[in-house]
């Protein structure tokens, strides 16, 4: 099995990655509790995808690259510098939410400062945006690159095709990562696509395509790193598919029992990237159960504080409804 030091990742690096994965998971779990308690109206989860998300973000140059994450990418935005507090402010739709000041649902990330493109709800529109960033980087001889994610179901939208093709024709510094979690709401992979792998689509654009185990953050890191190097050295875009499983219902509004069995979900939980990575770290003497407990404790405190802060923070004022339609 691939080792982190072979990838140039230090023990500190992988511990930090692990901490962020745990943080993402626990934030998500907390949001479900808050939702079920009637405190926040909506959650859309990262659970089962944190490992690949954090790993991918670590393979970027987080000081200058641009990202267009999709709604499950809590792991990505945390790795880029968004905080638990900021995510909770978003979940509670409070004025201080840096993503949208409470205008958008949770999972609609955006930050000019962190170079996270503002995202919307219609799926896949972010793909051409990332390609546009890639174009602008190339035109400006800016060595930044653009990283964009989407679900496997969303690769069936026209915008995936049009964006990928544009990036390939103009050899733009873009990485398209498809987080294949087996479902698009209730529709399983085999009713979304008939190809064997989503990465089979790459050849039709003339770009490299790989499929990797999304539950193994090290192979994800490696694939994204290679794609980033390729992009940065002027060799154009890449398509990466990460295979994992959506461990929760689609969102807090979903009832997954109508379309999949709890056995299937339980089985998938055994392969959960978070557990896989924890085991790896323990086996490689990077993590101990004690240290893990300490991480969990710190994470819990951070989330507690974030929740308390966000819960009592003010909502946007009614008058603010009218602002920001045009440049003022």
């Amino acid at each position: 099995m691939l080792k982190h030091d072979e990838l140039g990742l230090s023990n500190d690096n992988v511990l930090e990655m692990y901490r962020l994965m745990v943080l993402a998971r626990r934030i998500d779990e907390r949001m479900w509790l808050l939702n079920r308690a009637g405190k926040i109206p909506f959650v859309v989860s990262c659970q089962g995808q944190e490992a690949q998300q954090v790993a991918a973000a670590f393979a970027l140059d987080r000081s200058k690259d641009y990202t267009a994450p999709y709604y499950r990418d809590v792991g990505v935005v945390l790795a880029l510098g968004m905080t638990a507090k900021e995510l909770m402010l978003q979940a509670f739709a409070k004025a201080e939410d840096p993503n949208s000041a409470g205008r958008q649902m949770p999972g609609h990330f955006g930050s000019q400062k962190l170079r996270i493109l503002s995202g919307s709800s219609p799926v896949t529109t972010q793909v051409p945006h990332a390609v546009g960033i890639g174009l602008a980087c190339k035109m400006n001889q800016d060595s930044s690159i653009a990283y964009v994610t989407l679900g496997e179901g969303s690769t069936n939208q026209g915008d995936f095709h049009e964006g990928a093709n544009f990036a390939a024709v103009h050899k733009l510094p873009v990485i398209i990562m498809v987080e294949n979690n087996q479902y698009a709401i209730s529709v399983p992979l085999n009713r979304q696509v008939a190809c064997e792998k989503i990465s089979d689509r790459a050849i039709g654009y003339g770009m490299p395509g790989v499929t990797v185990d999304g539950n193994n953050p090290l192979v994800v890191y490696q694939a994204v790193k290679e794609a980033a190097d390729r992009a940065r050295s002027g060799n154009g875009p890449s398509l990466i598919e990460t295979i994992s499983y959506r461990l929760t219902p689609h969102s807090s509004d979903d009832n997954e029992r109508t379309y999949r069995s709890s056995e299937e979900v339980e089985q998938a939980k055994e392969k959960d990237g978070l557990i896989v990575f924890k085991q790896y770290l323990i086996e490689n003497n990077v993590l101990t159960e004690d240290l893990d407990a300490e991480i969990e404790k710190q994470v819990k405190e951070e989330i507690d504080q974030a929740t308390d802060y966000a819960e009592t923070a003010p909502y946007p004022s009614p008058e603010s409804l009218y602002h920001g339609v045009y440049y003022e």
Partner: protein
Amino acid sequence: MPVLSYIQAINAAMREEMERDEKVFILGEDVGKRGGVFLATEGLYEQFGADRVIDTPLAESAIAGVGIGAAMYGMKPIAEMQFADFILPAVNQIVSEAAKLRYRSNNDWSCPITIRAPYGGGVHGALYHSQSIEALFANQPGLKIVIPSSPRDAKGLLKAAIRDPDPVLYFEHKKAYRLLKEEVPENDEVIPIGQANQVRDGDDLTVITYGLPVHYALEAANQLADSDQIETTILDLRTVYPLDQAAIIKAAQKTGKVLLITEDNKEGSIMSEVAAIISEHCLFDLDAPIKRLAGPDVPAMPFAPTLEKEFLINQDQIKAAIKELAAF
């Protein structure tokens, strides 16, 4: 007569039409096992099977376009857009193709498709799950746009839409789904498309509206009849494109004072055309300027409850507008 909610009435209309005519089938995202994310198609997959209740890949232009192709064959597709906001990737298929097929082929081909989509706000849906999208299509001859305001209308108008030999956009208010309940005939009541409906009679002023605001206007009018002896005529447009000009003119002339209500943004809404019709045909019948009560001209309804509330038209505003106009 059984009491049905608005969404149950929609479900019943589809079931009955599918029983009646083998050519009727459903296609859309999550319409199968899941029964639709709002459960509009609940039970239909079980009754009619996967071949007549088709879970499509996540791609709205294909949902519309494949539906149009099937309609050209002679089928009667009901295409579901999961949210009206997500009909936008299908605009080209709807406007360039469905709307123009009969005309461009000089009546040789036709396109009897029904496209259903939940629209409207007040359900914490934020910017992209709250929009009123009807005005975008309300300048396209060849299309018909239907928006029911009650369970009974929802059923009768959906049946008419499915049977219509031309493409019909059928927008259902998602807040009405479970809010509105009434007795709905079990028999084959088909409510003709293209005809507005006077739902209340009164001599002091006329309210013209459609969709969920019909319900609010009725409540307000009834209260003001009691409290202030103001008698209001309410015209429910039912079909918002093409408009029932004769009914609009008659309703405006009847009282000489007109209040137009829509949940949509004000500028360029359905109510602009209603006002234009009145100002062309009834200028000398008017005793007061036409008044429009509409959402503010901001892009869409935000997530935060303070902002959602500020966006939405409320009962107080409706009552105040009615009183003001009555006193004019």
